[in-house]
């Protein structure tokens, strides 16, 4: 069943925490709210769970209205960042708690717990207490407690952020597998752009309580609606440079520092903007040792090795650029190189509003 937001807003006193005029999370989707801390993503999750009530608007799950229903009648399960396991209950007791409260019989409780434990590999842990478990095991128990209830929605509030990096990567895969097996809607909150991109079917990027852009991970990466979304995704993050547009002999050209970049393919209407913010992702900047007329001369000021890749910091005429190259090229600091910025990879943003410029720029989608 789809989850629909209609004019939902949440205020804490004067402060607007969340404002979502329209959003539909489709049945069975892995949907992620992502954004920096304080952007309202966790509050949004609390609104869905019923831990908070919206100041206005309604939430609808299928044809059932969720707003003003107490949390346990919403048919949702919540996995907390801190896991929120009951410390005085064993793993079995943690998993059985929601079922006991629902008044299930002893046998069916045992059966449901057994199924969940099997699915998550918790069988050897059932008699242990949370304090005897590792971080990853606690995480799994928290997921198990959500699964036993067989809810219509799973809500995850930064469930992986307390784990160390290798474990996080592993749990990411497990969550993805779990989603495939259960086929239930997963709604996920994280501040980690990489996690969002790798896990989600669709993503909503939030900032200051509002959804900036909502779409497929690829869309957000390739067609960010504004400079914020553009710089939120990708590591190292996108190069954003001030550029002045002018009509030249071969069409439009952008002036960045002391250098010229031909943007011949652009519509002449863009010239009205005058000054723009030009965005180019580091992996799209091409670096070469061969001098060619249309290439910019640059000097490498910093080389960071990341296994198979190196991140280069380049000094050009009056500005600097970050580029990603394969490590085999063996660039060294202080080396003189040549740089190409492919026109088709360039994003243009309005420097005052940050919004995407150009005929192909989509509005905020939902």
């Amino acid at each position, binding site marked *: 069943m789809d989850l629909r937001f209609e004019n939902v807003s949440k205020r804490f006193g004067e402060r607007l925490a969340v404002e979502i005029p329209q959003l539909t999370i489709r049945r069975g989707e892995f949907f992620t709210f992502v954004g920096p801390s304080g952007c309202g993503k966790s509050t949004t999750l609390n609104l869905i769970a019923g831990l908070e009530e919206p100041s206005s608007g309604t939430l609808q799950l299928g044809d059932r209205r969720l707003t003003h229903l107490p949390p346990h009648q919403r048919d949702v399960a919540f996995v907390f960042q801190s896991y929120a396991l*009951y410390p005085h209950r064993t793993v079995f007791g943690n998993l059985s708690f929601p079922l006991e*409260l629902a008044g299930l019989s002893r046998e069916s409780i045992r059966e449901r717990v057994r199924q969940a434990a099997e699915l998550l590999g918790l069988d050897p842990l059932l008699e242990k207490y949370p304090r005897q478990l590792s971080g990853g095991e606690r995480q799994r128990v928290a997921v198990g407690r959500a699964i036993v209830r067989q809810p219509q929605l799973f809500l995850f509030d930064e469930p992986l952020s307390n784990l160390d990096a290798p474990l996080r990567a592993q749990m990411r895969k497990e969550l993805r597998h779990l989603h495939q097996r259960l086929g239930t809607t997963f709604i996920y909150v994280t501040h980690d752009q990489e996690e969002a991109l790798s896990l989600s079917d669709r993503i909503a990027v939030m900032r200051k309580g509002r959804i900036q852009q909502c779409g497929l991970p690829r869309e957000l990466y390739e067609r960010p609606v504004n400079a914020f979304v553009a710089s939120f995704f990708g590591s190292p993050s996108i190069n954003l440079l001030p550029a002045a547009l002018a009509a030249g002999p071969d069409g439009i050209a952008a002036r960045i520092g002391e250098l010229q970049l031909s943007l011949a393919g652009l519509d002449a209407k863009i010239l009205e903007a005058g000054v723009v913010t030009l965005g180019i992702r580091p992996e799209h900047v091409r670096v070469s040792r061969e001098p060619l007329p249309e290439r910019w001369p640059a000097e490498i000021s910093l080389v960071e090795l990341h296994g198979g890749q190196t991140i280069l910091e380049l000094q050009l005429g009056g500005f600097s650029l970050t580029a990603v190259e394969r490590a085999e090229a063996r660039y060294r600091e202080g080396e003189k190189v040549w740089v190409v910025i492919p026109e088709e990879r360039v994003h243009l943003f309005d420097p005052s509003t940050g919004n995407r410029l150009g005929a192909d720029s989509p509005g905020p989608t939902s």
Partner: protein
Amino acid sequence: MLWRERIGRYGYLAPAALFAASIALVPILVTFWLSFHRQMPIFGISRFVGLENYRFLLEDARFWNALGNTAYFAAFSVVLELGLGLTFALLLNRQFRGRAVARALVLIPWAVPNVVAARFWEWVYNADFGVLNYLLGIKINWLGDPLWALHAAILADVWKTTPFVVLLLLAGLQVIPEELYQAARIDGANAWQLFRHITLPLLKPVILLVLLFRTMDAARIFDLIFVLTGGGPANETETLVVYAYKLLYRTLQFGYGSTLSVAAFLFILALSLAYLHQLRRAWELRG
């Protein structure tokens, strides 16, 4: 280990060990020693009598009366203090306007010195001029009536020490993570079930700590009763420590008085050990 190091180690420990021994261990040992003696300085009597004092203690009806009073006082006051304290702590743990002021107000009785509080309650209970009789519109001699006197002392103690219980329980409540309540609400718990399945089990270590402190305190109650009733009427409110005090300092029976002190000491020790056993288990369960 080098002998130098070993000497250094014990050398550093020695001052603290000596200090602790001189203020705690030595008096306890001396009391034990005295309890095997018949010692009455005014008559110049001082001789070793072995277990004679203990044999007498077991036949001393006044001792059994005092032990009963002590147990009754401790049980009732501690149960009331815990019940009231938990109620207040739960109320004060909620968000409301003026919470800081309310918390400070609740603590006031605890800040009053024991003897001052006892004098104050003595006036409250006064048969002729007391505010309690005035408010109830009756005339009861609270402190003079064998039926009422011990209960009056219990009420005064509850007034005085419930704030302490509130303080400890409030601290205990505040360390229970909010997410556990949220998780339990999503799992379907109502207000009572939240209390029963989250608050109470997670507060258990603190509750046991409160019980330990309060039971020990109540079992050695002295000042309140000494000021209010002096143990009367007709020894109806006489507790172990009040009786021991009278033996030791009114009749100067240092031997038998010490025997009684040892009995009180063992009584409180047994209670404490029972609590500590429970407490250790409760803390172990905590994550």
